């Protein structure tokens, strides 16, 4: 059983119909008054057609809350399919339903922390970085410069930031995990593609550092009613939407993850 103290677990959740403030290929900002307080690493389900008039795509899309400022909720993403493409081309004022906050987010680090974000996984880490109080290192990687979501925001934080891109268009050329060392006493927090998480988890295990990873899976509901979002752990499955998306790296069956 997961500890019941994980932030966000007992948080109030709600469905709020927000309005688009602005939207572009990598970001969506909504005016969403009434959306309850959330913890870093929690997510929301975004229904781009709140009246269910056009039911293709039918299901809402899970998105980490990148940042909240007042009533403005911000999401960061890459247009990979229909949902994210629509998300990036909404006109200001359009309605979007937001269900959340959902899932168990990150526990705030108690000491030094290393945050590793790959691609769209970066979006789950910004508020954790912002709210951390101990010594902080952040390593961000993406395929190319444009996909280094929110880089400016991380730059403005008091942290040791390293950046890499696979095509070398920004920062070091290579993968975010290349040459990544874990320093003694650091806790590790990671979000990104499974391959990256696997590599980070292996490094953490070697360094005996606690390691929390935020995963993705296909989700229909986001709050425990469809049972669709399982990920394999040592003793069975976890529902990623209610028991995750943040899990301890050590409990996952990495070999069964895609």
């Amino acid at each position, binding site marked *: 059983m997961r500890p019941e103290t994980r932030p966000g677990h007992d948080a109030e959740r709600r*469905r709020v119909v927000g309005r688009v403030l602005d939207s572009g290929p990598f970001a969506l900002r909504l005016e969403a008054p009434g959306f309850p307080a959330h913890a870093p690493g929690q997510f929301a389900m975004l229904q781009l057609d709140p009246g269910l008039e056009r039911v293709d*795509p*039918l299901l*809402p899309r899970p998105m980490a809350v990148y940042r909240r400022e007042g009533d403005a909720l911000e999401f960061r993403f890459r247009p990979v399919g229909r949902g994210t493409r629509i998300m990036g081309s909404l006109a200001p004022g359009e309605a979007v339903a937001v269900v959340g906050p959902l899932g168990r987010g990150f526990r705030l680090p108690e000491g030094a922390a290393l945050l590793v974000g790959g691609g769209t996984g970066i979006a789950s880490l910004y508020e954790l970085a912002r709210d951390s109080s101990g010594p902080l290192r952040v390593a961000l990687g993406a395929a190319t410069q444009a996909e280094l979501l929110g880089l400016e925001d991380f730059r403005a934080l008091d942290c040791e930031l390293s950046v890499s891109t696979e095509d070398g268009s920004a920062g070091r050329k290579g993968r975010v995990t290349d040459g990544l060392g874990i320093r003694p006493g650091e806790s590790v927090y990671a979000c990104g593609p499974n391959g990256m998480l696997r590599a980070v988890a292996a490094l953490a295990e070697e360094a005996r550092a606690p390691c929390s990873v935020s995963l993705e*899976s296909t989700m*229909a509901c986001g709050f425990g009613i*469809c*049972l669709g*979002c399982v990920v394999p752990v040592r003793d069975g*499955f976890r529902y990623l939407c209610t028991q995750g998306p943040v899990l301890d790296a050590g409990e996952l069956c990495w070999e069964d993850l895609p």
Partner: protein
Amino acid sequence: MTPDLSTELAGIPLRNPVLLASGTAGYGTEMLPFVQLEQLGGLVAKSLTLEPRTGNPPPRIAETPAGMLNAISLENVGVDAFLADKLPALPPHATLIASCFGTEPGLYARVCERLDAADGLAGIEINASCPHVKSGGIEFGQDPASLSELIRACRPATELPLLVKLSPNVTSIAEMARVCEGEGADGICLINAVQALMVDPETRRPVLANGLGGLSGPAILPIALRMVYQAAQAVSLPICGIGGIRSAADAVAFLLCGATAIQVGTANYANPSAAVEIRDGLADYCRRHGIAAVSELIGALRV
């Protein structure tokens, strides 16, 4: 004028015709942030087996055009944990129907017995129609003789109203409905998901780990509506209509075709408040059309 939304399903009095479908509203508590269960007709909880059951490995779900595919495979906490932990957590005035499942008639019957002994249940729905469980399930709902046998096993196991949830994967839904009537079921619920398959051309594999799955959502609504209509023509049992319902207009269509109540399934994922919105929309519809009681709509299709 406040229209009378009340209806009755197989002897179960319902505040209104809008229920939540099995497997799409968890054990009810998950819905509480979005829906006051007492405001709905009722809740059909996730299908229960005698023992706790783990489902299929992921991926278990996939989106399809205007629908979704699932192969959860009836993962559930088991009937005992349900009665001990889940049932007591529900608001006392919610109308609750339990759903039961087993791989053979005797196992179904034992779940029915335990449910029968419990307090706070308004009825039992037998899930005779899971489209992706390999043993049992689909056979009961697809073969008249097995369906008979199943109902015959469950009927004596409970005095609660007994509803049979039918599979759409049959040549004649009328025939299956008649079997239910003949065996003394109190009502029928249709449809469960339609057996289906999606393939990922990039990996050249089925999208779901299980291969086959069940298709649900708006895509199947016209199929469900046809089957409800055909079943209503064939039997005089009360019918609970299910399949792709996402709006009050959809609900009205099912009532007109002969359903006395409806269940909202996949739409709960797309909008967890869908069921309350449908209930409110039904009231609006009645007001707009000068209908005093929603029950006037049942079977009132003009053909």
